[in-house]
């Protein structure tokens, strides 16, 4: 299992567009990808769940990646966060 933390920088937080892109990115991998904001948890492959976390700017997310391709997935998803959020 891999894990990293990321503080959301985007002014609008994890709103529809990046949430959609994140779901697409997570769906590329077999590993289970879970977001945890402290208050709520969500499966990163489910857009409604991700959006309804209501993650705003400044929130620290703990992202865990678990599965056979977790190394590649963790790297790609961490990069995704840095570039889009």
């Amino acid at each position, binding site marked *: 299992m891999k894990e990293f933390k990321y503080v959301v*920088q*985007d*002014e*609008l937080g994890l*709103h*529809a*567009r990046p949430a*959609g892109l994140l*779901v*697409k990115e997570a769906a590329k991998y077999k590993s289970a990808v879970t977001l945890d904001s402290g208050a709520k948890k969500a*499966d990163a*492959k*489910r*857009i*409604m*769940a991700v*959006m*309804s976390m*209501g993650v*705003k700017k400044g929130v620290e997310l703990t992202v865990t990646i678990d599965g056979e391709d977790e190394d590649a997935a963790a790297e790609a998803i961490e990069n995704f966060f840095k570039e889009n959020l």
Partner: protein
Amino acid sequence: METRQGKSVFAGVAIGKLFVYKKAAQVVDKRAIEDPQAEIARYMAAKEKAAGQLALLKEKTMRDVGEAEAEIFEAHQMLLEDLDFVEGITGMIEQDKVNAEYAVFVTGEQCAAIFLSMDDDYMRGRAADINDISSRLIAILSGTQVSAEAMPEPVIILAEDLAPSETVQFEKDKILALVTQKGSANSHTAILARMMNIPCLVTADIDLDTELNGKMGVVDGFTGEIHIEPDEVTLAVMQEKKKREEERKLLLQSLKGLPTVTKSGKVVHLYANIGSEEDVDSVLENDSEGIGLFRSEFLYLGRDDYPTEEEQYTVYKNVISKMNGKKVIIRTLDIGADKQADYFNIPKEENPAMGFRAIRICLERTEVFKTQLRAIFRASAYGTASIMFPMIISVDEVKKIKGIVEEVKAELTKADIPFGDVELGIMIETPAAVMIADMLAAEVDFFSIGTNDLTQYTLAIDRQNQSLDNIYDPHHEAVLRMIQRTIECAHEHGAWCGICGELGADMELTRRFLQMGIDELSVSPVFTLELRKKIREAE
């Protein structure tokens, strides 16, 4: 005549017949079913059909409205395929043995309720997206396809609120204006109306009485009023207002997308001056070819502490991305003189216009300067960024700046952070800079002449002092010769030269600037198209 008030989100005047749009009420029956697998298959088929419809809507929106708005339907596609939504529906069909329409309805309501309960206006607005998808699925399943009612002639549409899919279903040339009881300046309806260039009122205090159908109406997008069955005087006034607006738009529209080039073939880059992220919309609307002056001061003013690198980066990145490859020239911090922020703790000065300001602060407080440069360089990976430095008086300053820029680039490279090719330029706004423009031009990629300060310093007239207005003459030959010399020196050393001060938009001088060989003019976005017209008419 009856007049009702709304909030205008797009100016313009529309005159025509009213049409009250009501959603066909969807009645969803709950039925027991025998074969859940067959019912799930029916739902899956409907889902596929809905995906196809959304793809078409996305294409239509892309064509009629724009790429950004088309993304709404991409989000709808993703929500349609969302596992919670899909599993909620199939689970309900299997366990409760109910019909697919009912399962979609209940699951859609549950999902929408989650969004409605959030403490965020944006997220609450997403409930409408889910309802939109549910209704689409139910309509397909029950064979009552929702479609915009046939409208024989263009109408003013009155509605409670419009889902994005409803708005784009109307034939674009059949809508004169949109007036809704609900909605906000940020609702999809408002955004679409702006993109489609039609007047639009939201939160309008209108009745949705079908008796209004076919009656005359006038929407005044300047005042936010809608006149129902207008009297002759009002109608005549509004027709005149509409005519003037149309003439103006037509003239300007005819210039959109055209190159800014003189009759003899000299190309001038026509850029825009902006002071915040929001101004970009106006830049794009007026077809500016880039941003020639992005004043970064707003990031520093009206707050208690320095903006962080991340804050700045986000703003620069957003602007650069929105400009989609077009040039964005960011001017570094130009604080001091008439723009003060307490946390800078700048000592009181006798003569702040000639005091500790702009690049003088940056070269003294290099950490503040480097934070800004790092933010700009990081954002430069998202498009085409240039940087210019204000209040330059010496080659030594430029060399120091370049040294600091190199440090920033080296740090980013070391940290493996990407950045783009960034042109470096300076503002020419002091007589000193003009006198050594040849030496400065050898150091930089471009000059941008700040005519407001240059005029003040050349004429030794304080521009804040109103009693001197009668002798403050920006057309003074001394100022014009300063500009001429700057352009000549730039060209001799392979740099390009623009004007970003108020004089750039002074159309009495446009011809003169062209004769001098100006390469770029950066003006307030609203002047862009008029100036393009002027340049295209010049020799």
